[in-house]
């Protein structure tokens, strides 16, 4: 079934540890995104990639990095996790970044930083 796969589903991580959240899509979408969702704050954009080889910063990029080596994969790395990064992380994609196609979401990764 075509879609977006995120891994892991959930993770408990000690503060200071490095963690990579994985995201793979098989829809050949050009644009990919990472959001975090927190109670009372909604979905906030962390980083995005309009096409393979390019990335950009969203609303809340500090403490996170991304790479886009190919069309399908868009990993999100926390270099040194802090408790404020406890959140649910959603990876999303759409055909292009032109704003005329809907965003499709993965099922999310629930991350707890202790």
């Amino acid at each position, binding site marked *: 079934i075509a879609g977006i796969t995120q891994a892991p589903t959930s993770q408990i991580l000690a503060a200071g540890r490095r963690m990579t959240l994985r995201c793979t899509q098989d829809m050949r979408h050009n644009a990919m995104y990472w959001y975090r969702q927190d109670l009372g704050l*909604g979905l906030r954009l962390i980083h995005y990639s309009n096409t393979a080889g390019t990335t950009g910063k969203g609303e809340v990029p500090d403490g996170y990095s991304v790479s886009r080596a190919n069309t399908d994969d868009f990993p999100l790395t926390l270099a040194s996790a802090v408790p404020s990064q406890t959140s649910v992380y*959603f990876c999303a994609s759409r055909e292009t970044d032109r704003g*005329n196609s809907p*965003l499709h979401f993965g099922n*999310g990764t629930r991350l707890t930083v202790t």
Partner: protein
Amino acid sequence: EDKVVQSPLSLVVHEGDTVTLNCSYEVTNFRSLLWYKQEKKAPTFLFMLTSSGIEKKSGRLSSILDKKELFSILNITATQTGDSAVYLCAVTSGAGSYQLTFGKGTKLSVIP
């Protein structure tokens, strides 16, 4: 800064009721407005609206956009318990590369 505001934040109704959810926005270079339904996991796409006054409809759900007054509504008629979810509104805007700004959502609870 782009803003998307949804109201109400939460709503409790009885099965069979009709509900209207609101979304207003202030963005630069509007492109489209999208509605999503989020139950336990990923938001699922409902509608994308780009033109004023044209209703989009899917079963008991419908939505319309007013680009002059900068808002959209999502209507759900004859609500069912399965409609209980958080409904998210998002606006695509920008220049060159279009990003989505999400509202905080409306939590709808439908009780039997």
